[in-house]
């Protein structure tokens, strides 16, 4: 029902575009509305849909939402569809084909903005039932119905397709089908839950809906979600064939139907819940559990299931988690929007030169190559470059799978000891070791060799931009482009600017970031920028707690219970304790604060965390050996507060210092940069929701008990005024 993940998924498919010359990829998705004009008798145009009837009496209905690049199902689009379906029912065509007139794909889901602020379950249920009733009309048509799918077919889009008797899909890798609703804290509500289970059986259907993952056309064919996966050139032929000689509709395999039995469902439900609980707790993410309950209760009664589906989604969508996850989705859209240039003229970056073949530089280079850019990666040591190529190959194989496409990506990535790629680069990214003088000297050389429009960026995480840029003839040119480790996982990139930095350069850098499918967050140059600065007090407090004798697993558990994706001790070990210490020293030098002795001791003992096999935890094949957690009664009562409030306090300080522009960007940055419990909607949102006064006084109490590091920042007062 949503188009969340749409871009995320697209990114993976788009990577092959520049070098890709296969006919499938070159062929444009069909735009049948225009193409068939000559042979069509009748054409009816509506606002969001085009209806045509061809000589064979087949009705071709094309989705084409007005004023949008992508089709989504707003209430208006759905209403119009309902009216059109009524008229189709009256005109008794030979068959109906539903397709998209947009090259971007079929339908990417419901219009998420319409769910914002839904508080009343009744209203929500009404909205959902209205959607269901439209799709029911498709199912009720006497004639064969086919959804002809290309590009994105997600959420409500797939639910619409499921209401058709048959589905055909373009086998191009850009085609992605899925029901990613759980990622927004809900489950399919326009009949998708019921219809997908009916079509392919509960085990496969639950696998898709509980993970929210999307699948290719070929995978969909294998599962039985679509009847044919064909090249774009045969999409309409396949649809026509299904109408002219309609086969029996697809059925789930017999063993899957047995599992749908009233007596077996609870057992499978129990098993599914256990699986889900490994990934998401029911307290934080209720949607998958609700979906399982729904099926266990009504799996053999489609009618009841449809009704209960609407009620269940209505309950979820008005809840805390879904509303916050929708907020996170919209924040993501907001970050993407920041990349837009004022005039809308889109600059396309083609060549990137990365200097520094360490883990960071190498992974940035590989990521850019994955996204279709020509990349050269420079390092004095061939050994490092060899490792870069090895890691890149692993990444490409995982993301692109097909050897031919993997090879094309490898061809785009050139190890470059001499720096041959520098001269032609559109973007130069420096990722060498953190040393001001080395960076200054490097940029002096870079400035001489690159063109006047080339973006010159540093991936420094700790050196203020001004210090580096002072070496440049034109200091306004330098911008910070701060990636997070691991690059392939962390969506956020901080676009760091100093007062001197040219605004236009920063804007273009944001556009570049979006082009490589990362989320740009503009931040002001300062110690730790935003993400590291906020993370550090939280990590340090965790280390202090550990030194006080609180078991590490208990500390981590408290954070995970709050909703963090990984506990702070585990995170510090993963990042590397040497790096943590470096950042902490850097921050404490400018912002004050003590560094826990334990951290120094471990670094001195070369126990640096996961990479050395021993840090706070001992690691076995990259997994920490956690002793079983102590009983809660022995733990300090303010454990969670001490961790989270230090983070929140720092966020307030950053806001006061305008490190980022406003609470929304703060929330977006912290969620996508640290994984901060998405279902809380971000730290500032959480703060406002919990109550500024309450948290402020809790901080004051903590300051009394544990010292000045908990002293509320001056920024709290201005928050209070709003609150």
């Amino acid at each position, binding site marked *: 029902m949503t188009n969340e993940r749409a871009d995320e998924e697209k990114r993976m498919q788009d990577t092959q575009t520049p070098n890709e010359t296969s006919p499938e990829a070159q062929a444009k998705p069909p735009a049948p509305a225009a193409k068939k004009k000559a042979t069509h008798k009748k054409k009816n145009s509506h606002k969001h849909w085009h209806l045509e009837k061809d000589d064979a009496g087949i009705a071709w209905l094309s989705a084409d939402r007005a004023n949008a690049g992508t089709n989504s199902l707003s209430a208006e689009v759905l209403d119009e569809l309902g009216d059109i379906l009524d008229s189709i029912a009256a005109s008794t065509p030979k068959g109906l084909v539903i397709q998209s007139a947009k090259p971007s794909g079929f339908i990417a889901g419901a219009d998420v903005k319409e769910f914002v602020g839904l508080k009343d379950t009744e209203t929500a249920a009404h909205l959902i039932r209205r959607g269901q009733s439209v799709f029911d009309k498709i199912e009720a048509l006497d004639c064969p119905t086919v959804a002809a799918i290309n590009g994105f077919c997600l959420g409500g889009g797939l639910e619409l397709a499921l209401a058709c008797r048959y589905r055909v899909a373009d086998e191009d890798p850009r085609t992605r089908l899925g029901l990613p609703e759980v990622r927004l804290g809900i489950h399919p509500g326009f009949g998708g839950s019921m219809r997908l289970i009916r079509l392919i059986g509960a085990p496969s259907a639950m696998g898709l809906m509980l993970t929210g993952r999307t699948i290719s056309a070929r995978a969909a064919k294998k599962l039985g979600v679509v009847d044919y996966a064909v090249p774009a050139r045969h999409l309409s032929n396949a649809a026509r064939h299904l109408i002219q000689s309609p086969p029996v509709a697809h059925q789930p395999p017999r063993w899957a139907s047995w599992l749908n039995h009233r007596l077996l469902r609870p057992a499978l439900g129990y098993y599914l819940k256990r699986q889900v609980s490994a990934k998401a707790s029911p307290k934080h993410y209720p949607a998958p559990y609700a979906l399982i309950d729904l099926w266990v209760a009504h799996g053999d009664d489609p009618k009841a299931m449809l009704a209960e589906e609407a009620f269940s989604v209505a309950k979820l969508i008005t809840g805390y988690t879904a509303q916050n996850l929708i907020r996170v989705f919209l924040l993501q859209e907001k970050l993407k929007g920041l990349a837009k240039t004022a005039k809308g003229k889109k600059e396309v970056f083609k060549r990137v030169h990365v200097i520094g073949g360490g883990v960071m530089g190498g992974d940035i280079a590989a990521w850019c190559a994955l996204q279709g850019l020509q990349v050269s990666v420079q390092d004095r040591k*061939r050994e490092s*470059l*060899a490792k870069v*190529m*090895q890691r890149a190959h692993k990444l490409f194989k995982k993301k692109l799978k097909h050897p031919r496409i993997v090879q094309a990506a490898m*061809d785009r990535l*050139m190890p*470059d*000891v001499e720096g041959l*790629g520098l001269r032609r680069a559109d973007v130069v990214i420096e990722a060498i070791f953190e040393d001001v003088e080395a960076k200054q000297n490097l940029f002096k050389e870079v400035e001489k060799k690159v063109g006047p429009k080339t973006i010159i960026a540093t991936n420094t995480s700790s050196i203020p931009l001004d210090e580096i840029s002072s070496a440049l003839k034109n200091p306004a040119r330098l911008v910070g482009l701060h990636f997070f480790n691991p690059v392939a996982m962390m969506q956020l990139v901080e676009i760091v600017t100093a007062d001197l930095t040219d605004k236009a350069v920063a804007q273009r850098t944001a556009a570049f970031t979006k082009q490589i499918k990362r989320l740009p967050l503009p931040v002001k140059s300062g110690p730790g920028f935003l993400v590291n600065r906020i993370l550090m007090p939280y990590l340090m407090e965790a280390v202090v707690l550990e030194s006080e004798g609180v078991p590490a697993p208990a500390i981590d558990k408290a954070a995970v219970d709050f909703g963090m994706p990984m506990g702070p001790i585990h995170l510090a070990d993963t990042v590397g304790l040497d790096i943590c210490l470096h950042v902490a020293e850097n921050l404490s030098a400018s912002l004050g604060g003590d560094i826990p002795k334990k951290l120094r001791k471990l670094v001195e003992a070369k126990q640096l965390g996961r990479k050395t096999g021993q840090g706070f935890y001992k690691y076995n094949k990259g997994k920490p050996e956690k002793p079983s957690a102590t009983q809660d009664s022995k733990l300090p009562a303010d454990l969670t507060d001490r961790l989270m409030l230090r983070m929140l306090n720092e966020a307030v300080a950053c806001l006061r210092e305008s490190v980022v522009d406003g609470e929304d960007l703060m929330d977006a940055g912290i969620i996508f940069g640290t994984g901060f419990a998405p279902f809380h909607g971000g730290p500032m949102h959480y703060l406002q929701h919990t109550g500024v006064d309450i948290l402020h006084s809790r901080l004051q109490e903590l300051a009394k008990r544990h010292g000045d590091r908990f002293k509320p920042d001056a920024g709290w007062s201005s928050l209070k005024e709003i609150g």
Partner: protein
Amino acid sequence: MKNGKTVFVVDGSRTPFLRAGKPGPFRAADLTVAAGRPLLARQPFEPDQFDEVILGCVMPGPDEANIGRVAALRLGCGKKVPAWTVQRNCASGMQALDCAARNIAAGHSDLVLAGGVEAMSHAPVLLNNAMVGWLSDWARAKDLPTKLKTLAALRPGHLVPIIGLLRGLSDPVIGLSMGQTAENLAKHFSISREQMDEFAITSHARLAQAQDDGIFEGEIEAIYDTRGKFYEHDNGLRRDSDMQKLAKLRPVFDRKFGSVTAGNSAQITDGMAWLILASEDAVKKHRLPTIGRITDCQWAGLDPAQMGLGPVHATTPMLQRHQLALKDVDYWEINEAFAAQVLACLAAWRDKDYCRNELGLGQALGEVDLDRVNLDGGGVSIGHPVGASGARIVLHLLHVLKRKKAHRGIATLCIGGGQGGAMMVERDTAA
């Protein structure tokens, strides 16, 4: 070139030549990308400015039909640059340069990327005909009894593969392996096992010295595999080889009584070399520096059983045409297919009878000093990826001329099937 426009060599690069055992980390097209990317990155023009790409290769892989086009596209030359592949066995790389040079001389092209490649470790291994026939029967067997019957007909002999590499290195007309043709020459010119082994030791010693002196900087591009390894030197070099060790090796082609061993033959290797050739117009247009000119090329045929003497037959008429004596050639690259074969070439020029009977000369052509031949090692030490060597020796010869501030050189090689190829290059010594 004679009767045409001047053909300049702008730049060139090659991969290290890697000893082949199991299929190596690079397929032929991978090698073309690895050597070509840095070469193209350092040019002032864009890769789509080439008029054509020509690549020599004897045995491209199954996914490398018209490997020239595969290379051009993977190197980002764009869909509009035409590309083709040439095959003249061991001289395929030189043939590519000749085609490029002729097109430039004739005014058809101005800027051409040409070279040669061979991934001998990826040479195909084929099913024999009996097996192919059996597979076709198997595919047709629909019911169980027929299937069982077909299965019962399967014999161990069906599974004997055809080793493409061995077949490729044998002459299909006369039925001799290349090594056996070298044995012929050794017999004809009385070249001893010791002479061959000594030649091999010199070849390794020269390569070792050249590597130590950094001679290959600017010529060899390091290449990177996907497993975290890189290769920057020809790795067939044996620094520890001596006469005693070489003497222990058994003859490989004429098993008991021969003298050609793996130690005094070219090594089976994977490798490739590219050169950029340009007309004067292109040189001016893109302000290209040049490293020399290709001034002539000659092909000749001879008895396939004596194919190792190809260089003699190709070079002699070229010298005559230019009214040059052997001593007028400053430096030579005579591809070392076999130590015996290079020594035989030099012996043939020295031999009055051979020059009179086979070359139609009045007297012996003369002496070529080994100090002017293969200065930095050759096929025996560096390796001889068949399709690549012709391009490698021309590229290296130009580097030698530059280093020695010399004027003229000839790169020449013998060609399986009984042919020889020779290419003359020159550079202005004033510069």
